């Protein structure tokens, strides 16, 4: 994961294998910002000799191991050359692998024993793990890199030097306290029919503000919550109805070191 000043959560894949080769990089982004990203890159390109173009002939897949997958990485090695990219998801192990193929490629040849799943199951998996992706989860200009857990997902370099927002990001990371983070939440039934709007206020039992809902599907989602409140029972008010929810810390977050 990477962030541009407004856009958070764009992933880079390097195609060229050695530093001497001409750099050839694939960039994965939400299809809704395809134009915005190209405009953004071209704005800062100025005179650099860089070609920026959408890869309409490629398909992007997430390869998520099922419960009984065991160690499938050994079978990857044999078929990897049929894929354009097959690499562990750079964000976290729980997201499995990222696979990029030519459109129309036969996936069961590339990943034997795999089957194509439902996109809604992919999103559920993400929300259960608290992994934001795309502009719905990370609204441009609203989502902040550290609160979005980008530092936990290898999305921020603290050694690369100047970029827009670098000073604030570095200072907060090293010295500041991050009081709110995007966390996975689980709703108890019954759920409102029309879903839960982005920005809906989440409250503690005593009515204090604990954060805001961001996005989700069904009984799972992610919310920006005050870390001080996540172990309490929480709720939302939707059209006069109270909806209860609980939050949890994802297992893949780094464990705090005891001092």
């Amino acid at each position, binding site marked *: 994961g990477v962030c541009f000043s407004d856009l958070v959560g764009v992933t880079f894949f390097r195609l060229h294998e050695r530093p001497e080769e001409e750099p050839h990089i694939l960039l994965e982004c939400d299809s809704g910002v395809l134009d915005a990203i190209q405009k953004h890159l071209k704005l800062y390109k100025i*005179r*650099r000799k860089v070609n920026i173009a959408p890869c309409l002939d490629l398909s992007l897949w997430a390869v998520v191991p099922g419960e009984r997958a065991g160690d499938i990485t050994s079978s990857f090695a044999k078929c990897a050359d049929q894929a354009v990219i097959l690499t562990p998801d750079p964000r976290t192990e729980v997201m499995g692998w990222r696979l990029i193929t030519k459109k129309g490629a036969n996936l069961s040849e590339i990943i034997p024993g795999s089957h194509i799943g439902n996109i809604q199951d992919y999103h559920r998996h993400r929300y259960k793990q608290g992994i934001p992706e795309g502009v719905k989860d990370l609204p441009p200009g609203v989502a902040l890199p550290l609160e979005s857990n980008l530092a936990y997902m290898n999305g921020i370099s603290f050694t690369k030097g*100047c970029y827009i927002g670098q*000073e604030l990001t570095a200072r907060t990371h090293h010295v500041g306290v991050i009081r709110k983070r995007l966390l996975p939440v689980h709703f108890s039934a019954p759920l409102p029919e029309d879903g839960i709007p982005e920005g809906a206020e989440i409250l503690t039992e005593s009515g204090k503000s604990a954060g805001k809902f961001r996005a989700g599907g069904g009984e799972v989602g992610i919310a920006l919550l005050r870390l001080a409140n996540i172990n309490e029972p929480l709720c939302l008010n939707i059209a006069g109805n109270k909806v209860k929810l609980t939050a949890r810390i994802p297992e893949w977050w780094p464990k705090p070191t005891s001092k």
Partner: protein
Amino acid sequence: GSWCPAPLCRGRALQRIPPGAACAVGRPPRWASSFSQSGPTASDPSEGQVFLSESCVKRLLEITEGSEFLRLQVEGGGCSGFQYKFSLDTVINPDDRQGQRGGARVVVDVDSLAFVKGSMVDFSQELIRSSFQVVSNPQVEKGCSCGTSFSVKF
């Protein structure tokens, strides 16, 4: 001729061109835009101009040899999104615009000129460093404290 790297030009060895043959191979330079300190003289004034301070002129006369000139470019990068890059160069390209004051020459390509038109190039000597700087850029929204990076108003 002999190959000789110009001091401020990163990674680019430049051939010294004998005086009198100041322009590189290819088409003759476009002298269409001429920056000047007082009043516009450019034949295409919408492209903009850059002004040179006295200290800039003085410094350039001290350090340039032969056909060398100061090149100003704008690149993406830095803490505010864009950054200025100064170098010494001897090669003029068709999309360059150039101007002079008191015998000192500054060249800006047309894409970079869009970001710096109306600015002044100064040579500032401070305790922390001496360097060429772009000052009073009317298009800058905010600049960084070291003067290298900036963002623009749109």
